[in-house]
């Protein structure tokens, strides 16, 4: 029953301008922001990477995964297992390994999951993520429900020389910023690549893609795996920043938050994912400050977004400015 959504793929000038402003602000922020806020923005950027990874799967390919957090959490745990209790682990080994680990788990689960469609897909992604959750939750050897502490941030030393020290808040901030922008650039590139075009085609009309000769299952598995690996990158950074991982990182709520971020900002162009992540994290912070019953506010907000702003915040910006470039895909939703 899903109708193909038309997405904002080519960003109109108004939006590009706002994004450029945002990027500049991010670069300058640590010079003016307090420690607390630098930490908070770092976390938002990590969520931005997480949201972008889901956008590849959900926004571009049209696959709604309710279990994306599994790959986020696995990488965090990978870092925890690779970091000794009394010394840091090397960044240059642990980061690629953690990302590959998440990618591998995504590949294995993806193999089962891409055989399903529609609502089944949603349900089985959730189910497999829960399996991963319980694997860690039930086993003391893997940390159990208490989780694991990561006592040191990864060490960036190369043959005795330390190019940058991730223990420093500002350094970690810029490290995350560079990675976030790098992931954005990579994904934007992928969007217009033969892979990206095929994935969009699958979202819009998978049946026709198959009739034209595309092996759609293989494409979906690729998207699932790449998205999982990138979620792993975010999870690794989360573990490194907070110094603590627990099964909740792989839980249902985390997956649902990711979905919300992607929708909130506007799907299919990756900039929306970043905007959504920032907005969502900020709102969470505000709601929690206002009342201990913040879930009521958050729930109400989510319902409001579904009812009023299905194309997310970027969609609103584009609409407000009126002008859209000729290549903006067909306006509005196509309701069945």
């Amino acid at each position, binding site marked *: 029953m899903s109708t*193909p959504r*038309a*997405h904002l793929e080519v960003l109109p000038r108004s939006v590009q301008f706002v994004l450029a402003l945002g990027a500049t602000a991010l670069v300058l922020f640590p010079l003016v922001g307090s420690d607390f806020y630098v930490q908070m923005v770092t976390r938002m950027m990590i969520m931005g990477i997480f949201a972008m990874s889901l956008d590849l799967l959900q926004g571009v390919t049209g696959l709604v995964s309710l279990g994306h957090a599994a790959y986020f959490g696995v990488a965090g745990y990978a870092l925890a297992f690779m970091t000794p209790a009394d010394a840091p682990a090397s960044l240059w080994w642990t980061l690629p390994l953690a990302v590959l680990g998440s990618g591998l788990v995504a590949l294995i689960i993806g193999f089962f999951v891409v055989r399903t469609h529609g609502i089944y897909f949603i349900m089985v992604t959730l189910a497999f993520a829960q399996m991963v959750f319980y694997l860690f939750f039930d086993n003391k050897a893997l940390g159990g429900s208490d989780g694991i502490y990561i006592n040191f941030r990864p060490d960036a030393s190369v043959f005795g020389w330390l190019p940058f020290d991730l223990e420093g808040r500002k350094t970690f901030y810029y490290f995350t910023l560079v990675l976030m922008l790098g992931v954005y650039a990579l994904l934007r*590139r*992928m969007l*217009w*690549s*033969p*892979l*990206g*075009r*095929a994935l969009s*085609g699958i979202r*819009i*009309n998978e*049946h*026709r*893609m*198959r*009739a*034209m*000769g*595309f*092996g*759609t299952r*293989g*494409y979906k*598995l*690729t998207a699932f795996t790449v998205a999982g690996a990138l979620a792993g990158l975010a999870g690794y950074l989360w573990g490194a920043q907070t110094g603590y991982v627990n099964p909740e990182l792989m839980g249902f709520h985390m997956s649902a938050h990711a979905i919300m971020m992607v929708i909130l900002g506007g799907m299919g162009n990756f900039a929306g994912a970043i905007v959504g992540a920032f907005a969502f994290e900020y709102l969470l912070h505000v709601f929690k400050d206002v009342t201990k019953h913040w879930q009521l506010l958050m729930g109400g907000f989510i319902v409001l977004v579904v009812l009023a702003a299905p194309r997310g915040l970027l969609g609103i910006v584009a609409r407000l400015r009126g002008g859209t470039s*000729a*290549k903006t*895909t*067909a306006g509005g939703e*196509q309701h069945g």
Partner: protein
Amino acid sequence: MDELLLSARGLTKRFGGLAAVNGVSVDLHRGRIHAVIGPNGAGKSTLTNLLSGDLTPTAGKITLGTTDVTGWTPERISRQGLGRSYQKTNIFLPLTVHENVRLAAQSREPQQPWNPLRWLSDTRTDAIKNRAISVRLESAIELSGLKNRRMAIAGAMSHGEQRQLEIAMTLATEPSVVLLDEPLAGMGVAEAERMVDLLNRIKPAHAIMLVEHDMDAVFALADQLTVMVNGEVIAHGTPADVRANAAVQAAYLGEDH
């Protein structure tokens, strides 16, 4: 002797106890248009779906060229050289004509979704850099008469134009066998004439199977005719033969022909 490109023998498809298609055989030759006609519910769409791989036959065999493709998935059959268009327009509505046909043309590139090199090249400049895609793309757009509508969004076009796009996408996959499911459906006189003209132009290079209700077009275009009723073939031959066939007259065409 025209080359035999597709041969289907004894195709049967049962749904539960009902045989939607029963023991149907069809041959498609290059340079010939083979029309399949029959009343509603005769099994023509089912037959098309069987040949394209959208449905798996309960019995029977399909040979494409020299390869047995019975039971193959639609994507494999497509890559083997069969293309089809749909009765209910089945295009990418939010994309432009250019993007629609470009995707179809891309399908002939080596697939390899795992290859990271395929993640990084920019398809917006493909038309310039990738000659093979560009050739397929341009020729399909040219043939289908949509050259002036390249940047139009598919969902915003008229029904007739969408049917043209439907054909363009089928052609861009460079099939040797083309299955057309009611390409003239819902078209006005001028549009229908354009479509008939298009079909005559692509005829020499392809083997075409045409499922149609528009009798004027069928008798104007078809070199061979198969008549189906209730899932079975009741007549087969040239249009003249079929016109004269008593069983066909009784079942389908009525007294006046």
